[in-house]
């Protein structure tokens, strides 16, 4: 068995990447170090062990535990590579945190809403995810958890620089806010690149969620802040929410325009994407993601009779490598994954759906 039972349990949970429209989900993370201990990169194994114990003791306090329902903890070294990949696909672990390092501990609320990594780049990395644009809700939860922990741990803090972190790109608030956004229409219109490049002026950055040869497979992008010093957490979150909402509206406007002008082409694309996923016997990730991208626009626009956003979000997770291995309960080569992915799509999309719902009133 290549998956830890706890992680397998997480994989059975529903997806969080469902949003009303282009903004699929929001992730926020908070980095903190414990006062009096060297940061993990330079700390001795004894210091790391002490930091982990101190953090765990705080996490097990009654007032903290009630914010982390049915929390569990696993030493990082006991997680297999597949476990860690699955956590990354679930957005419970950062892509740069999959390396095995001594005294790293992964802590997670059973519902998967909150995950914590001890002794990653910093002593504590608190991470929360929610569907749609949800900064306010997430920050309220995160701030409550941080405040509860701060009653038991003295965090490394400097009166001028704020919370001190291993990387100076996080110093200050230690807060990283990320929005997952789906921008296919802006991509087709050719304006996406310019819009995303301009984010730099606002201290934000956009990167492909699934980078394939420098492109964003599935038209999915992560937009996150690059500055953490000199701006209050709420101000940053609200500013980002405004910017991301504006991009989302522009995407929706472009979609509506394309739909009204080229409805036949749009229905054709949706039908073909559905056909591709339903009838393939071997399908690589990037091809599946691009087809799913069109299906999402179809689901958002009510083109399909039965295929919903929820179905889409589930498929998006299921078609990824670690989820496929978890479902099959064995290691799969890329070719085997392609085959099994196609099988999963055929099973899930098996049903009379070829005629788009909008077809009746298309003309």
């Amino acid at each position: 068995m290549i998956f830890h039972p706890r992680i397998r349990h997480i994989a059975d949970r529903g997806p969080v990447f469902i949003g009303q429209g282009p903004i699929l989900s929001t992730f926020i993370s908070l980095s903190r170090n414990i006062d009096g201990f060297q940061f993990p990169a330079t700390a001795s194994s004894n210091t790391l062990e002490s930091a982990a114990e101190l953090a765990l003791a705080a996490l097990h306090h009654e007032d903290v535990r009630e914010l982390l329902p049915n929390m569990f903890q696993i030493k990082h070294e006991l997680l297999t590579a597949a476990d860690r990949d699955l956590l990354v696909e679930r957005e419970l672990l950062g892509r740069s945190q999959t390396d095995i390092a001594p005294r790293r501990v992964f802590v997670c609320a059973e519902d998967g809403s909150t995950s914590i990594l001890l002794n990653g780049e910093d002593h504590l990395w608190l991470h929360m995810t929610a569907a749609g644009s949800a900064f306010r809700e997430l920050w309220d939860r995160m701030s409550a958890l941080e405040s509860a922990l701060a009653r038991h741990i003295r965090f490394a803090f400097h009166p001028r620089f704020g919370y001190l972190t291993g990387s100076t790109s996080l110093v200050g608030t230690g807060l990283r806010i990320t929005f997952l956004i789906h921008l296919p229409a802006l991509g087709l219109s050719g304006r996406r690149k310019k819009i995303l490049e301009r984010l730099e002026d606002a201290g934000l950055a956009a990167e492909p969620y699934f980078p394939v040869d420098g492109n964003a497979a599935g038209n999915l992008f992560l937009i996150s802040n690059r500055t953490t010093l000199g701006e209050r957490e709420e101000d940053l979150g609200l500013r980002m929410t405004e910017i991301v909402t504006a991009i989302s509206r522009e995407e929706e406007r472009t979609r509506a325009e394309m739909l009204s002008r080229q409805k036949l082409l749009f229905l054709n694309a949706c039908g073909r994407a559905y056909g591709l996923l339903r009838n393939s016997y071997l399908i690589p990730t990037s091809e599946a993601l691009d087809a799913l991208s069109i299906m999402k626009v179809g689901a958002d626009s009510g083109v399909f009779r039965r295929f919903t956003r929820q179905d889409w979000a589930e498929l998006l997770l299921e078609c990824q490598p670690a989820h496929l291995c978890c479902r099959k309960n064995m290691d799969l080569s890329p070719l085997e994954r392609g085959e099994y992915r196609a099988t999963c799509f055929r099973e899930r999309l098996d049903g009379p759906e070829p005629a788009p719902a909008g077809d009746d009133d298309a003309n």
Partner: protein
Amino acid sequence: MLCQICKANPATIHIQEIANGESTTLHICAECARKRNVDSGDANSHFHEMLERLTQAIANSAELKLAGLFDTNPQPEEEETQDLDCTVCGTTFKSWKKTGRLGCAACYEQFAQLLIPEFPLVHHGSVHCGKTPPETVEQWQDPVVSERIQLRRELERLCRGLDESIRREEFEQAAELRDRIAAIEAELNSAELIPDESAPEAPAKKPRARGRRKST
């Protein structure tokens, strides 16, 4: 060598011209070169003008990276800024310049004057605003954890002492230290505060216990 034109100033510019397959070399001074270029509209004039401007620009701009190419002084500009290293973790300011990472809270304190002008380049200024920690937090509330932290600090001190004793070939003292280290390690290992997969309340779906391995 004197200038072949005015025969007064030293020749500093040497122009090689190839005409009809024959090569001739002209050794002239800067003044005559300027005149000659203006008068004849020599093709070289643009090159010399450009080179002059470039040299001038480099002389004027200490920041210009190209400076190193023309600089005869082996010490690059950057070397002149004094490097600092943190007295706690040994991280240097130069390594931060390369990696953007610091090793401990003391780094921020010790490099503060150097960091203050750098932060506004990548952040909104250099002064934190936002959440702050509560005024007083007792770090060592948990007596068990607190004791273990003290033990580990003692352990590290003893390990350093052991290395030193071995280096000095004081084997009796080394043996004594080794025994004390072993005793502390045994005490630390007698309790596992980070179990592989602890859940204080029994989880709904109890997974099978995996092999436990004590860390040392």
